[in-house]
């Protein structure tokens, strides 16, 4: 079996990654990321190569790879649209948001549009609850997404490319604490601190 994914420079990078860790097996996740970036998904042949690089069996690589939701064992679309429907997003309309997308594109969860452009998935909390409802396209954040605008957002990505759309409509860095200048200047000392009630009512 000749290596097909990890050759040339990528092989060098992979070896360097392995060398970064006290034990080679630790490089398993990083190498699977490399594989997925290179091949689009975690391929069977690629997993064999990873196994050889870190010194475990393919079965062990598979056991690990399938544990993590980011690793896709089947090909996916050019863009991965991950809609958070976890609690904070849910109570602010994420289900509606996701339904709009599925209806518009006629796909079910974890399916890809016929043109191979987008794969949609429902995900657990994306760590952007302050901007709920939110979604990620190729792991770039878009926050405060409105149901009425979500299809347009995705189509915009198709039209103009992710970089342009994200720069304009996405959150480029995590949002700052939304404090006003006056609040910052005033310091954050709480006005009233809690004092335990007199009698134990717990």
């Amino acid at each position, binding site marked *: 079996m000749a290596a097909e994914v990890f050759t040339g420079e990528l092989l060098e990078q992979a070896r360097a990654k392995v060398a970064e860790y006290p034990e080679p097996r630790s490089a398993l996740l990083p190498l699977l990321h490399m594989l997925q970036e290179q091949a689009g998904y975690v391929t069977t042949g690629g997993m064999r190569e990873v196994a050889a690089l870190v010194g475990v069996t*393919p079965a062990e690589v598979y056991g690990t790879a*399938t*544990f993590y939701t980011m690793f896709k064992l089947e090909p996916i679309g050019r863009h991965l649209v991950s809609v958070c429907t976890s609690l904070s997003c849910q109570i602010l309309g994420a289900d509606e948001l996701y339904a709009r997308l599925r209806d518009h594109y006629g796909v079910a969860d974890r399916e890809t549009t016929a043109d191979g452009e987008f794969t949609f998935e429902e995900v657990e909390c994306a760590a952007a609850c302050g901007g709920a409802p939110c979604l990620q396209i190729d792991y770039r954040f878009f926050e405060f997404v409105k149901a009425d605008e979500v299809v347009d957002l995705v189509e915009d990505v198709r039209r103009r490319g992710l970089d342009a759309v994200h720069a304009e409509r996405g959150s480029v860095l995590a949002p700052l604490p939304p404090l006003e200048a006056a609040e910052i200047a005033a310091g954050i000392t709480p006005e009233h601190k809690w004092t335990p009630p007199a009698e134990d009512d717990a």
Partner: protein
Amino acid sequence: MAEQVTIQVDGQPIEATAGELLIAACEKGGVYIPRFCWHPRLRSVAMCRMCLVEVEGMRGLQPACYVPVADGMEVRTETAAVKKAQEGVLEFLLINHPLDCPVCDRGGECPLQDQTLAFGPGESRFVEEKRHFEKPIAISDLVLLDRERCIQCGRCVRAASEVAGDPLIDFSYRGNDTQITTFPDEPFKSYFSGNTVQVCPVGALTAAPYRFKARPWDVSSVETTCTACSVGCRGVLQQTRNTPVRFFGADIEATNWGWLCDKGRFGYEYVSHPDRLTRPTKGRVPVTWAEAIDEVADRVEDLRAGGGAAAAIGGARLTNEEAYALSKFMRVVCSTNDVDCQLDDGLPGAFVAGTQQRATVADLAGAAAIVLAAPDLKEELPVLYLRVRDAVVGGKVALHVAGGRQSGLDRFATTRVAAAADFDAAALPAEGDVVVVVGRQHLGQDTEALAAWAQGLVASLGGRARLMPVLRRANAHGALDMGLSPELLPGRVAVHDHQARERLSARWAGSFPLEAGRDTRAILEAAAAGRIDILFLVGADPLADLCDPDLALRGLEGARYVVVIDLFRTAASAHADLVLPAAGWGEVDGTVTNIEGRVQRVAANVVAPGQAASDAQLFREVAEALGIEFGCGTPQATMAEIAEVAPAYAGVKASAFRGRAGREGVLATPGSVTWTLVGDAQPAPSAAPGDGLALRVGRRLYDRGTLVSHCPSLAELGPGTVVCLHPDTAAARGLRDGDKVVATVGEATFEAAVVVDAAAVADVAFVPHAQGGDPLHLDASTTVALTKRAS
């Protein structure tokens, strides 16, 4: 010695060893705590949560399979909280379980079933849909997996990875989708796959050979010893309607810890194979047993009268009692020492039998170091491989590999040298016991040199060395101990040992030479020269197994009269004048002796087909037909006689095998024979001369030998005719994996497929023995030339 402590379990005191797991301590003390994931021979993982108990001073419920006992610990196993948790876990396990017990191989012997009688489907509070998976999928040639029945206890995964070192099955996915899988389309190819079936607490893993063969309540079982190799694993042989249907490991501390290899586990299939020999034949013509006896008796009588010569090759398949009968027959009736249970493919007999500081398997784990100058144990002595692996994994015991192919143990080795002679004893730790495992590393190897080297190493280490000489064949060790060697008499004594001869004369009414007899090669040379009048081949086929096929053929053709006693037709039986059907494993009672010199019982559980009978019966009946008082009427009587005449076996009595302790067998004691190298050892040439490659032929677990090829489940598992090459060696010759080549060895040529194997030794071609091709003429300097064939 670990400290003894007392714990209180449900108010009752239980004695335990400090640090031992609570679940084990309770069980020994008579309190059974239910469990699924815990297995006494596997690492504790506390995953199933079935064994939760209350421990005073510890918050919440504790898994008894994970908590070590400490003095004064107070444990409650029957409180309401414990019951509730256990019921909860059972219910959780059942909600997705198909409850198809009536069609499950485990039905009737299933811990899950046993523990959940009350959870019939009608009472389930689970009204949602159960998890669905494709019904059993074959994860290997031998094992099927039904993921719906799996309770995710992980025993199989641990048995495969921790015990066998074959992490080829693993959990995949997570949460409620968690399942056991192999890598996609890559089978669970392990010599120990059957162990996973055995440890599976439900019917999720089933063995293809056993599937639907029987229900647990209509089998009858005996505990016996595996003889597929000489490790001496203990197991339970089950039969139904006189057909063996299953063999599973028994947990014996001394030897196999409950494990078996797949060859041992599934190797019972040949016993009931329709090709078994069922009646004596003369040429192609069937004769009665009585006619056959008469015929042999006549021949032997002529020989006794006229000073002719008899010889016997083989006997390693026999029980000790049968081997003793053969040994006695050849000496007493045929007056010869021309007997040899090896086919020039083991170690010098006196070297093995004369071992003084002999290692036990248990010594491996307690040693400071193990020196391995042996064949790939995984291929030849699989469960010994497991025990060595267990000892060296994690660096508890240092491993030094001295020669031989690379094996799964190499990764644990502290040092590795290409040949035993290169081993530097300075690499050994300064203190602690050293176990030297020595065995023929490839066919054609000069084992005199190897034995001399091992002897020298042991001598140089003094009292801290233990030697484990290993022979592969079933009861080869027992056969040597019974004197099936030209230079040995029963009891590990030399043929010229006067004391021994004295002792024997009480029972052996006949005389035999004082000098050593001929070994297999010499017997065949003599036969070829027309000097052997009767040649007995007892479960041996020189045409298949001797590294000199030409000599084997000349020998068989030259012998005046050839008697073959075997289970199946063999290449040699075509040259036989008389072929007798033998009863074999599972059909005869007796004892066998393993690599440690441990004598263990084998037990009959089925009746041999047709007129097949114990080999001992033939020799006794021939002797009696000649009016010679022979004895050996029953295995028990023979055992008693052996104990009387063979000092090393003095302790081997029927009583020694009774009770729990008797399951471990008895170690025979050292004999008095000594072995020394005569002449100079021939150092093996390390580099291949000319443009050929050095040829190494060695055993693989699965071959096309007589027994394996009559086990349908195993017959196809061998590699076939292949040549294994190191990647560099292959590349240098422009060969790639899967290429077809014509290999030329001397006059012989054969076709083979190239296997590129990183574990192969550079510049050496490794060819597995007996994979369907013709046997090759081999010696230490044999080379092979490979020519690629256009595909």
